[in-house]
């Protein structure tokens, strides 16, 4: 009798463990992100119809640009736990680097984007080497200081046009097709970034970053070179943000400090990650979609007021009350995350 009882307990434990293991390795619905990508890649075909869908293309492109930036930010802010409010600096570096070459030599920024990303990454590595010595609030403040330094620099640097900026030649295509090259550039960049963050999260590097975000001293004594890991994470996140900046300048046909170096850009990256769930793969994507859609809806309903800024704050507060880990993070924690959104 006694042994029977024991076997029941063991069986229950085995089932419990099997469930935990299953939770750790949930089969992913890989088809979903691929299907979304396929739909987005086919979307410009709408322009072949008689009406003009430039607005839709712009919205998707805009969202995709934020997906690139928020996912890039997520590498440092989400995985390593270093909240940077200064990532628009890399947006500016990418934008100015590619934009100036485009203005002078006519090389398309879409081709230059990876190179601009590398430049941003190198700058990021150097800056990270200095600022990553501190963490928590001190790091956040140092990242804000970075924005101010770069704002002053770019406002007064005549070679790049100072505060007035530089206007770039517009692309030589009919209006209906003018957005399409940028559209593809951003959608492809977004896909690459999301895939890259997925690969990082599932690598030794990603595991190390997660350890750093939880307990840096423990991580260091576990044999992780924390200084190198977090600086590399900084450089990688700068790479993606810089890439987005490169194409963004040409898309707007203008590079100017108050396009790139305004706090709104970096705050948006952070908000998107926090709303969607930082440290998750799908989080920044969902966050970018929601915040862009929400802003757009506010503009539609309330016109060119600033209600959207007020409302964004309200939505953030509510979201954090009900989804403290972000939408994806909280749903995953409670085991209610739909399969199709489990990209981790």
């Amino acid at each position, binding site marked *: 009798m006694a042994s029977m009882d024991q076997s029941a307990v063991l069986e229950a434990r085995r089932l419990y463990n099997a469930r935990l293991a299953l939770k750790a390795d949930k089969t992913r619905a890989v088809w979903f992100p691929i299907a979304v990508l396929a739909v987005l890649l086919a979307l410009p075909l709408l322009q072949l119809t008689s009406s003009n869908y430039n607005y839709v293309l712009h919205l998707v492109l805009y969202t995709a640009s934020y997906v690139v930036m928020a996912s890039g930010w997520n590498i440092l802010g989400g995985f390593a736990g270093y909240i940077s409010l200064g990532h628009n600096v890399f947006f500016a570096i990418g934008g100015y680097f590619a934009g100036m070459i485009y203005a002078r030599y006519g090389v398309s920024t879409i081709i230059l984007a990876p190179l601009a990303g590398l430049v941003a990454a190198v700058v990021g590595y150097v800056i990270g080497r200095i600022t990553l010595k501190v963490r928590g609030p001190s790091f956040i403040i140092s990242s804000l200081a970075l924005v101010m330094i770069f704002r002053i620099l770019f406002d007064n640097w005549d070679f790049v046009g100072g505060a007035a900026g530089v206007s770039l030649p517009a692309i030589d295509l009919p209006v209906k097709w003018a957005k399409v090259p940028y559209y593809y550039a951003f959608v492809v960049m977004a896909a690459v970034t999301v895939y890259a963050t997925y690969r990082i999260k599932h690598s030794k590097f990603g595991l190390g970053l*997660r350890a750093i975000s*939880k307990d840096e001293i423990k991580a*260091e004594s576990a044999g992780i070179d924390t200084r190198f890991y977090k600086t590399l994470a900084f450089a990688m996140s700068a790479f993606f943000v810089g890439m987005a900046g490169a194409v963004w300048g040409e898309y707007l046909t203008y590079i100017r400090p108050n396009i790139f170096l305004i706090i709104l850009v970096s705050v948006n990256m952070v908000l998107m990650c926090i709303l969607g769930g930082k440290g998750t793969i799908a989080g920044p994507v969902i966050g970018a979609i929601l915040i862009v859609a929400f802003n757009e809806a506010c503009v539609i309903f309330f016109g060119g007021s600033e209600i959207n800024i007020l409302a964004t704050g309200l939505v953030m507060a509510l979201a954090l009350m009900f989804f403290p880990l972000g939408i994806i993070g909280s749903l995953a924690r409670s085991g209610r995350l739909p399969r199709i959104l489990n990209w981790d």
Partner: protein
Amino acid sequence: MLTVTNLCKHFGGIRAVDGCSFTAEAGKITALIGPNGAGKTTAFNCISRTMAPTSGEVWLDGGRIDHLRPHEITAKGLSRTFQISRNLADMTVLENIVCQAPIRGWRGLMKPAMPPEEVAKAEGILEFLGISRLAHEDGANLSYGQKKLMDFAALLMSDPKIILLDEPAGGVNPSLLEEIIGHIRKLNEAGLTVLIVEHNMDLIMRLSHRVVVMAQGQVIADGPPEMVREDPAVLDAYLGGALEAA
């Protein structure tokens, strides 16, 4: 194996460790004991470089390690646990342990986080410690004693030559204590050098081959446990002059 020479750590005017020297011999269990505030944990922190020592030298296997960064020391084969178990919440026990597996070079960084051979090794360690049922549990859900065991498991994952245990028995129940003593003994028999900081005299006297006693940052006695137990300086440090008063 591990030699500490004239180690000092000052916090402003406080000399937490003040010229402490001792040796942990290869294949032996050495215990570092002393009353509260004697500087044991600080000495530990300086050896594993979690803190930078003010002065002094630490040698491991004939190489000086006191200028290295903690992860380099871990790579050299010295691993430690923490007094208050520091584990990585939000990560499963298995992830916590695999996290401590050594990584080699650039290419190692992009390898999969949980390669099957490392998972198998981690499961083997958990089996050895008798907590394999916890493998997929969230690190934050563990009890205090389970966390101690998990720390222990993570320690072994890095293939250390010498392990530094900071109060492995602190706050654990008697039956778990027996378990921990058994594990330490088994590992030592397998050739692992052990350095322990501990308050539990029972554990110290039963396990250690050699006891180093610290008081006020200095080593006041050093020798086999039977000898140290009788040492008047040790009794004085622990009982604080109560003997003279009597």
